[in-house]
């Protein structure tokens, strides 16, 4: 064959020739080096064509290249009177570079057009928003967020191509250009196609996939409803949305859901005119029925991925039963909100008997009032739907008796003061356990009824019924246990009984467990011990907590050797207990086990995994590995943001935790920024009266101290101490820590007596709360030592430093950065007293510890080296001293600049040591 020319090769690569011709050319190219090289060249050229073409066309429109036909977006006059029918105008011809074909619809948010994009040439849906990006900042936000939305690329999500703003005579208008979907709304499709429950669930699982994908990209929909999910034909070619077009094919041709408007709700809602949810007579229209309890409460900061999960639950409910969970017709908005927040929807099994059992449980879990109890992600919901479809056991469980009891208690809080609780527990426990048992039996009967012909299915149903019965027994036993424990305090059953405190109740429960009250029911015992252990830990009784939690872990290991969520929970609580006792190696091992277990159960991204990473990060921080600590905290923060959204109490916690580590790494300015962000978020979400607020305030004040903003810091610290005093018991360890922190500021402004008094009070409280061998105590010893040192009371100071080091060596380890830091402080004190030989090993250890814990070049390494260099100089070990001081000088100069006092002092010492060396040399030469 003769070598093909450029035209033929181009067409061949573009696929613009017959298969036969293409095969012939490809065969030739394989054997012809020259043509093979040309193909490479052409292919490389074609790769840049799309971008080049866009630039050429843009250049033409903006007049940078040559005049061209077509619209010019910068020419405002072209857009005069083009604001669509919503403002009483005619349909525009062009918006931006889109030619308007027709109006598809209009509503509160603006107008939707079918339009044609020039390049690439395709039909698009163009949503012209009422929202006006009136300020440059708002416009920038809009474009920035839209850039994120344009990244969503999933077969179940209608692609957003572009979001922009264009100028009109009336000001800027914003629009979205998105994939034009040929389809019909989910519910209408299901009805007209006559889908069965299984097919409907299959569709919902696909919708969940798309929603979960977007959540992983950090985008929440906020307005999921059947109208926003169109079912599109697979491989359809007609790009027009036909309102009258109904699916005619029941075989699955229309099988693919497309979710519209992902992430744009906040922009649509940006205009208050768009949020009208009422007709003239106050009847609710629009999207209220799909809103979660947190959404109808109107607090947008509470919205996260689980709000979308709720909407998916409502859609599933509607798709399966043909009606909404709540009847909101003719209700006012506040009334509708109250119904959504408080009423329990009719179980779908009561509407359609065939939906009883797993499907009912799945939908109920998605519709839980408290988002913590819902599926934590759309993927979890999809997974359970698919488990049901595959005849596998689902993960969701009916609401537990204990949970229902707690909800009952919350509704009747006034009744449950004091010992009367036991009587109520008794009654409710009986009711709930009876209900659960009945439910198990009902499930069994139903299973037999529905699946009598299928032996395998019968076995599965029996298994589920058995599982339900086991659950019922477990809850009944747990409640009986609690009831028995509290019975002695119930004046109705034990005349003369007094009210019991929580501590007494827990002690009684512990005694019962020790005497084997639940030894026959290990699952129940594990749950109860985990709960009691955690409560004891929170109350500061670590020894008792440890005993319960260790036993819970032992039981869990026996019951589920391969691991389980219950075991991971017990391990996490045990780790936290050990951590509180400063038993760091044991705590770390337990955290890592729990983390691995949860990763194998939930995959990489899960809220509980983020929590564990954060816990582990703080532990690594305490153990001195600040670099790994930072990395873990960043991972936890990113995961929480992805799963929970930007504004959430757990995100606030992560910001605080990361800031603590950044501050320890020397980045006080960044730490300040994060502390403030965390504080602001917590204040907004939790209100002022929460201990976390006081904690973050304390941390922020300490960052301000590092930034030498003492007055501001002290004011904030005093506020934090006051808050803690009001919120916590006087003997809580955090109260003692607050006093210690406040004293730091008092000391810095020279009020030594006041500082000493605060430290001594803190020491007494810490000792009482945490014992005599706790690192918090060591920290306060060091601080008090500094007060004595400052006043020349070296003996007292030295004794305190030595006590602190002893505790830190035992709890943190010998080479931990905190331990060696105290060693450094002691060494400096010893140098002041000219006890050079005693100081030397302490300084050497400080340098080694700092090099092992801090990033290379950290100023603290430079500081330790400077003192080590000075010490060696004073010991006349000049060569060693010079090398060390050189390094100290380099580190300090790089970190703070050569003019910094630390760097200048290193330079001064270096000079001194050089002069000494010269003198020594001179003395050696002289006879």
């Amino acid at each position, binding site marked *: 064959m003769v070598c093909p020319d450029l035209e033929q090769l181009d067409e061949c690569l573009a696929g613009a020739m017959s298969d036969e011709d293409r095969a012939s050319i490809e065969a030739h190219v394989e054997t012809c080096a020259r043509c093979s090289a040309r193909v490479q060249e052409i292919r490389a050229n074609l790769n840049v064509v799309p*971008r*080049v073409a866009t630039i050429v066309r843009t250049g033409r429109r903006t007049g940078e290249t040559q005049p061209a036909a077509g619209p010019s977006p910068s020419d405002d006059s072209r857009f005069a009177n083009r604001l669509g029918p919503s403002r009483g105008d005619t349909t525009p011809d062009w918006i931006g570079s889109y030619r308007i074909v027709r109006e598809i619809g209009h509503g509160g948010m603006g107008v939707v057009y079918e339009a044609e994009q020039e390049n690439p040439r395709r039909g698009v849906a163009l949503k012209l928003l009422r929202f006006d990006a009136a300020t440059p900042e708002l416009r920038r936000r809009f*474009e920035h967020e839209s850039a994120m939305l344009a990244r969503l690329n999933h077969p179940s999500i209608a692609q957003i191509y572009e979001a922009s703003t264009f100028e009109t005579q009336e000001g800027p208008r914003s629009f979205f250009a998105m994939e034009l979907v040929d389809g019909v709304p989910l519910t209408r499709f299901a009805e007209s196609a006559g889908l069965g429950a299984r097919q409907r669930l299959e569709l919902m699982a696909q919708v969940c996939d798309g929603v979960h994908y977007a959540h992983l990209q950090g985008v929440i929909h906020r307005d999921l409803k059947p109208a926003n999910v169109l079912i599109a034909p697979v491989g359809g070619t007609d790009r027009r949305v036909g309102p009258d077009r109904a699916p005619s094919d029941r075989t699955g041709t229309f099988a693919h859901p497309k979710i519209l408007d992902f992430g744009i709700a906040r922009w649509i809602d940006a205009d208050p005119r768009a949020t009208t949810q009422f007709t003239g007579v106050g009847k609710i229209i629009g999207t209220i029925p799909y809103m979660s309890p947190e959404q109808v409460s109107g607090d947008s900061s509470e919205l996260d991925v689980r709000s979308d999960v709720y909407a998916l639950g409502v859609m599933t409910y509607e798709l399966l039963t043909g009606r909404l969970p709540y009847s909101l017709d003719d209700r006012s908005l506040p009334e509708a909100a109250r119904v959504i927040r408080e009423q329990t929807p009719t179980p779908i099994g009561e509407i359609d008997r065939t939906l009883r059992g797993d499907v009912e449980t799945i939908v109920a879990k998605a519709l839980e009032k408290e988002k913590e109890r819902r599926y934590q992600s759309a993927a979890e919901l999809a997974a359970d739907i698919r488990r049901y479809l595959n005849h596998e056991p689902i993960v969701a469980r009916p609401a537990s008796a204990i949970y229902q009891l707690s909800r009952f208690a919350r509704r009747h809080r006034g009744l449950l003061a004091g010992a009367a609780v036991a009587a109520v527990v008794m009654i409710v426990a009986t009711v709930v356990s009876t209900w659960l048992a009945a439910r198990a039996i009902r499930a069994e009967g139903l299973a037999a009824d529905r699946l009598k012909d299928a032996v395998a299915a019968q076995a599965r149903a029996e298994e589920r019924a058995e599982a339900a019965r086991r659950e019922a027994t477990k809850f009944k036993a747990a409640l009986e246990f609690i009831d028995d424990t509290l019975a002695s305090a119930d004046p109705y059953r034990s005349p003369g009984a007094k009210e019991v405190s929580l501590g007494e109740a827990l002690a009684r429960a512990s005694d019962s467990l020790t005497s084997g009250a639940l030894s026959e029911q290990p699952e129940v015992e594990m749950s109860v011990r985990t709960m009691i252990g955690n409560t004891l830990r929170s109350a500061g009784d670590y020894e008792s907590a440890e005993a319960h939690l260790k036993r819970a872990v032992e039981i869990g290991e026996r019951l589920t050797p391969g691991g389980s969520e219950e075991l991971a929970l017990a391990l996490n609580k045990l780790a936290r207990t050990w951590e509180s006792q400063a038993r760091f190696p044991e705590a770390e091992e337990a955290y890592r086990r729990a983390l691995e277990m949860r990763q194998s159960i939930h995959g990489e991204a899960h809220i509980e995994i983020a929590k564990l990473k954060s816990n582990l990060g703080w532990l690594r921080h305490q153990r001195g590995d600040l670099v790994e600590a930072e990395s873990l905290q960043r991972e936890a923060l990113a995961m929480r943001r992805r799963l929970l959204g930007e504004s959430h109490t757990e995100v606030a916690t992560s910001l605080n935790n990361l800031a603590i580590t950044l501050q320890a790494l020397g980045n006080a*300015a*960044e730490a300040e920024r994060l502390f403030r962000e965390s504080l602001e978020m917590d204040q907004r979400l939790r209100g002022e009266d929460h201990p976390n607020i006081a904690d973050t305030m304390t941390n922020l004040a300490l960052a301000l101290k590092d930034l030498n903003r003492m007055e501001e810091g002290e004011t904030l610290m005093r506020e934090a101490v006051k808050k803690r005093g009001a919120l916590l018991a006087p003997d809580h360890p955090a109260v003692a820590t607050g006093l210690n922190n406040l004293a730091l500021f008092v000391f810095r402004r020279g009020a030594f007596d006041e500082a000493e008094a605060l430290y001594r009070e803190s020491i007494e409280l810490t000792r009482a709360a945490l014992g005599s061998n706790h690192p918090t105590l060591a920290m306060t010893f060091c601080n008090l030592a500094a007060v004595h040192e400052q006043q020349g009371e070296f003996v007292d100071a030295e004794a305190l430093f030595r006590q602190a080091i002893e505790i830190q060596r035992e709890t943190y380890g010998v080479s931990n950065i905190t331990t060696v830091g105290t060693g450094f402080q002691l060494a400096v004190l010893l140098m002041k007293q000219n006890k050079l030989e005693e100081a030397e090993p302490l300084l050497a250890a400080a340098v080694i510890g700092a090099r092992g814990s801090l990033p290379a070049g950290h100023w603290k390494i430079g500081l330790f080296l400077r003192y080590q260099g000075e010490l060696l100089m004073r010991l006349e070990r000049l060569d060693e001293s010079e090398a060390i001081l050189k390094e100290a000088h380099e580190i300090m100069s790089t970190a703070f600049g050569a003019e910094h006092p630390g760097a200048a002092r290193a330079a001064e010492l270096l000079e001194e040591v050089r002069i000494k060396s010269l003198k020594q040399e001179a003395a050696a030469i002289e006879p």
Partner: protein
Amino acid sequence: MTMRIPFNPNARPSAGVVMEWTTTSTILSQLRDRQNDAAWSRLVERFRAPIIAFAHKAGASQTDAEDVAQETLVEFAESFRLGRFDPSRGRLSRWIFGIAFNQILRLRQSNARREAKAVSGMDTGFWHDVMDEDRAHELWELEWEQAVLEQCIARARKEFTADVMSAFEGAVADHRSAAEVAADLGVSTKTIYNAKHRVLTRIRAIRAEIEEIG
């Protein structure tokens, strides 16, 4: 790859006058001479636009974005003079991105408190978002490619005749077949294909001269 979101045309810096063509390697070697103002101007002309566009998209105001570009280019030139750029460690664009991204982080840090106050009470999630580096890099690559290709096309216009450029543009930009373009221009389809590939090949070569440091 997702669609690029065009930024506000009002914020786009003007294209400026295309100067005499010089490879980036040459510009950088001339920059070693601190007095060489022409080299500095060329550097600014070549790389200022994508930095401004990137900073703008990352949330900076127009003024701040211009400051980011200025600081980035100063730091870039200085570190090149000090021999800190090692081509084996990555592309030129990646290097400039690293500097620009740090500048943006510094800017955000210094503006953080002011911004938090300014937007309090609004649902403004992304203001609190420290931009993820991967996402920022993706944005940067789009801006970089846009700016570099614009320069390549501008340069190609100077090197090819108007006829060749018309044929090229007709072939790549208007979604018309080569036969239609050929008929319009009164030339053969072969001429159209030749023009298309000659210009594209040259654009790629110019791109290499901009992006590679020999």
